[in-house]
């Protein structure tokens, strides 16, 4: 986002749905932000006026609707900020700061991408998928979750992906194996130009291995506790990988990421 000014605005909630227990999709109207947003980027959101909670909370774009001037976030209620958010309804106001961080970029001449995620890690993926579809890129989706119900936005992904592979820990849908085994199978006979993963250290590790074996282009979308989201506080540092000539280097997840080449960062 070189040179683009940060935008801080009050924006209207268009609607909110609890898609499964404690998981919400919140749709917000903010043409200024949507116009500039790139999948993989995020916003800092506040739905409170007082000082408790104090900080804004970071959320990635789940879907972007540039024509409508709106976007959606997909979030899980985990603490006091997301609890307050869960009461939001059409017409309410939230304060936004964004778009923040670096979004994804498809390598030149990308034909096929894979998305690999677990649980709430699916949050940035629909936006990536939409972008890929727009460019005529095929999507291979690999999603895992603890149980069937936690395969969030599965239906939407199924509609848009060329193939969808699912694993659940309890085998309530798909197998209970590693979802990256399916990816490995695909890689054996298909050239995937870019892989995006989010939401699980284990997935990241497996994909790193596959990267070495198959020479993939792979990115991970990271999360870290954030106070500012725009590079001011240095609170969101993550370690650069040592064996990557970055000895003793830290990245800021908010400014250098949240999308990182998979083998450049430790988690």
């Amino acid at each position, binding site marked *: 986002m070189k040179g683009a000014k940060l935008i801080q605005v009050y924006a209207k909630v268009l609607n909110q749905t609890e898609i499964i227990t404690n998981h919400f999709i919140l749709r917000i109207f903010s043409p200024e932000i949507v116009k500039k947003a790139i999948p993989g980027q995020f916003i800092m959101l506040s739905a409170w006026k007082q*000082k408790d*909670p104090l900080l804004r909370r970071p959320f990635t774009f789940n879907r972007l609707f540039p024509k409508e001037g709106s976007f959606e976030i997909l979030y899980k209620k985990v603490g006091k900020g997301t609890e307050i958010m869960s009461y939001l309804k059409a017409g309410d106001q939230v304060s936004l700061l964004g778009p923040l961080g670096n979004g994804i970029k498809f390598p030149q001449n990308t034909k096929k991408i894979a998305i690999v995620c677990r649980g709430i890690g699916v949050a940035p993926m629909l936006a990536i998928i939409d972008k890929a579809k727009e460019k005529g890129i095929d999507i291979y989706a690999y999603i895992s979750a603890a149980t069937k119900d936690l395969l969030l936005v599965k239906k939407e992904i199924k509609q848009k992906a060329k193939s969808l592979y699912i694993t659940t820990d309890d085998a309530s849908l798909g197998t209970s194996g590693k979802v990256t085994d399916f990816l490995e199978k695909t890689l054996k006979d298909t050239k995937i130009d870019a892989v995006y993963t989010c939401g699980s250290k284990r997935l990241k590790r497996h994909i790193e291995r596959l990267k070495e074996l198959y020479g993939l282009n792979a990115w991970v979308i990271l999360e870290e506790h954030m*106070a500012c989201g725009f590079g001011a506080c240095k609170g*969101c540092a*993550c370690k650069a990988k040592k064996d990557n000539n970055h000895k*003793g280097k*830290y990245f800021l997840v908010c400014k250098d990421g949240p999308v990182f080449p998979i083998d450049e960062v430790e988690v």
Partner: protein
Amino acid sequence: MKKVDMSINLGGLQLKNPVMPASGTFDLFEDNNLPYDTKVLGAVMTKSIFLKKRLGNPLPLICESTSGLINALGTPGEGVEYLIKNKLPIFRKANQTVIVSIGGDGVKEYKLLAERLDKVEGIAALELDLSCSNNVDNIIIARDEFLTEQTVAQVKEVSTKPIIAKLSANVTDITKIARAAQRGGVDILSLINTVSAMAIDIKTKKAVLGNKVGGLSGPAIKPIALKMVWDVAHTVDLPIIGIGGISNSEDAIEFLLAGASAVEVGTAALINPLVMLEIIQGIEKYLGQQGYSSLEEIIGLA
């Protein structure tokens, strides 16, 4: 409403208005993309810089408490030469008044840093961070009268710039430390730094932060900071920069009335990058409404 004079002279440091960022909560990049023009600020302030590169503390580095932020960064940074080469030009472009904050492991390092920076153009003043509450490896100078006096004196020996000493709230009597800094020859006092604090995760039964203990900032500490500014303003005849939980112009005005001549804003600007602009406008409006023609008239009125 007539135009009010927002400028202030702090022991040789001339500011066009009394509002600036607190060290470590403000950074500028090549692509300065803040949603306002940083030229409106009274000054800009770097994160505390050490001589050498520092990695900082183990992760996680920050967590939230009720109306507060606890950080245990451990002052990571690339070292002074990097700052001079890569950051200073950006800061100079952003504002005519650049204050560089310096940290050090022991008195000697402060002196070396001050010496090095004295040769660099475009630095209006140095703030000595004598009070970081989360650096494991160095002692907190501003907890000790002798060390405070020594550090300031050594820095003053080699520096021609106005020197600000940043004090710690974790002391029995902050006015004694303030007087020690004065004996060392300091030009300006700034207070307070973060207050020593911690959080424990009852699920893991461990400290939340990688460094275990950290420093508390934000609205939670405002009444504590205000009291310390008031105490120092009533005992030491030096200009004071008030810091701690300032989140809007009303808060800033409280510090001015308590005796601060300027303020630094930290945590609040992480949440609302526009807040310093709002504070400047708010102070100006207040002065006008109350019939004052200059900022100086309200300093220490309470």
